[in-house]
């Protein structure tokens, strides 16, 4: 299936999802759905770097929060339409990803991973000390109740996140099937041999980091409107780092379907757990599943399905 066709299929599927959600008379569907879709974008973005090239990013929260705080910053200057904010958030996070990649990607993957952790903490400290965006007290964003053509504002946000999910999935799949995808895979499999075969590994890693960071920033840009009151502890929350890693690792890192499955499964599971048990237990479950899958099923759910199918054809 060519990428153009895939994109059309995705858009059609997204339209179905949106109109089905509208048929449910409870707006909660949109609130919960927004969170799940956000995770689809984050997981897919993480996987472009982590799954495809093998470089682990522990600081997904940093890129996500950059997008969110770019929105807060601009909101104080002049309220802009959210799609524009998404582009700006993506640009800011992309540039930071590029810069950080340039500093650390020439070193081993382990150092890059630790540097991403460092980035998250440094950025959080900067934001906490920056009063213009609210500092540790947080920032309020008043969102309108309704929007023309669609109705309740949360549906508009849901639609935007749906669009971002479609974009990120299409980008991921497009990469997989392109020359870039081969290059990423060789970096993951054996970086030295990749260089010796003519693959410009640093340049490709920078592309992956920038793309991944940009997508995460785009996911973060509408967040202040969704949540209404943005605090550094929620924007930089640990659940973003863990889920961005757990969802692709549990779903499967080798192709675009894995993060989607992981995000939908874990995202829904967490919505249910948070409401019924507690948010701490829900995070515990995610962490335990991550450890279990990494040990027992390293190729995730997609890997398990592939093994099962290969077993059946024997």
């Amino acid at each position: 299936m060519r990428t153009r066709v895939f994109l059309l299929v995705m858009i059609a599927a997204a339209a179905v999802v949106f109109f089905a959600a509208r048929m449910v008379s409870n707006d909660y569907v949109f609130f919960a759905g927004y969170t799940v879709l956000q995770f689809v974008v984050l997981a897919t973005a993480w996987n472009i770097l982590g799954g495809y090239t093998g470089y682990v990013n522990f600081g997904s929260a940093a890129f996500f929060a950059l997008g969110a705080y770019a929105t807060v910053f601009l909101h104080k200057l002049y309220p802009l339409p959210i799609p524009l904010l998404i582009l700006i958030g993506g640009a800011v996070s992309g540039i930071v990803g590029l810069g950080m990649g340039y500093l650390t990607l020439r070193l081993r993957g382990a150092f890059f991973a630790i540097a991403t952790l460092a980035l998250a903490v440094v950025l959080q400290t900067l934001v906490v000390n920056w009063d213009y965006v609210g500092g540790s007290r947080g920032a309020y964003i008043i969102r309108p109740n309704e929007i023309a053509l669609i109705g309740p504002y949360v549906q508009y946000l849901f639609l935007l996140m749906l669009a971002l999910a479609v974009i990120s999935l299409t980008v991921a799949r497009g990469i997989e099937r392109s020359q870039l995808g081969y290059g990423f895979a060789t970096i993951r499999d054996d970086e030295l041999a990749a260089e010796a075969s003519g693959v410009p590994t640093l340049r490709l890693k920078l592309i992956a980091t920038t793309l991944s960071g940009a997508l995460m920033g785009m996911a973060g840009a509408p967040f202040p409107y969704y949540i209404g009151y943005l605090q550094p502890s929620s924007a930089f929350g640990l659940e973003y780092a863990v889920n961005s890693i757990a969802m692709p690792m549990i779903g499967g890192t080798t192709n675009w379907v894995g993060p989607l499955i992981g995000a939908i499964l874990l995202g829904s599971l967490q919505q249910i757990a948070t409401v019924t048990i507690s948010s701490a237990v829900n995070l515990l479950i995610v962490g335990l599943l991550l450890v279990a899958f990494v040990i027992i099923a390293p190729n995730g759910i997609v890997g398990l399905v592939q093994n099962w199918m290969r077993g059946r054809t024997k």
Partner: protein
Amino acid sequence: MPGALLEVTGLSKRFGGFVALDGIDLTVAEGERVGLIGPNGSGKSTLVNCICGTLVNESGSVRFNGETVDGLLTHERTRRGMARSFQLPRPFTTLTVADNLRVPLLYTVNARPGHALSPTELDARCAELLQLVALADKARHLPRDLTQVEMRKLELARAMAAEPKLLIADEAMAGLSQSEVDDIVGLLIRLNEHGITIILIEHIMRAVMKFSQRLIVLVSGKKIADGMPDAVIRDPAVERAYIGQ
């Protein structure tokens, strides 16, 4: 020096206090078949790594095809025409055997200015290379399904896929049977007849003697002999190095 494809001058490489290479000078003329031998740990692979840019040497210089390549990254040197196979095969484990060959075709051959291969030409070239090393029936397999010997052939094929001017084969024949060794030597000689300069690093003396027009001997990071194979073999210093092992 005119006609020299590769010129290495005063190359030295240290790991902490350990001197792996000590002021190596060597030249390889275009079209030559050079053999490089030496006991284990003499620095052969380190030399290859420094020439190709995988390791950075502390001092000395490498000129390739009239251009100083010091400071260039490995992939840039590969694109300029240097290719090497690794002593311990390093295949791309999640790609099929055919796709392993596709990578240097996409990233080296197609990256050079001039005619880029179309997808059909790429597929044809992959098939051709696989035929050359007798791996055509394993095209769709993953490297983990290959035997050690087949992996070495894949390693060599991948280096060949980059259409190099200079091919450095690092112990490509370890573990092969007599006839397989002869096959590979024949293949390399044929490649050389098509214009590819080849440096063969090997322990299998039969192959080295059959293949080399010139023989270089490395011992403990120093070059101790460089000349016609028959003369080098009889050199007392060389005999001492091997017997004293």
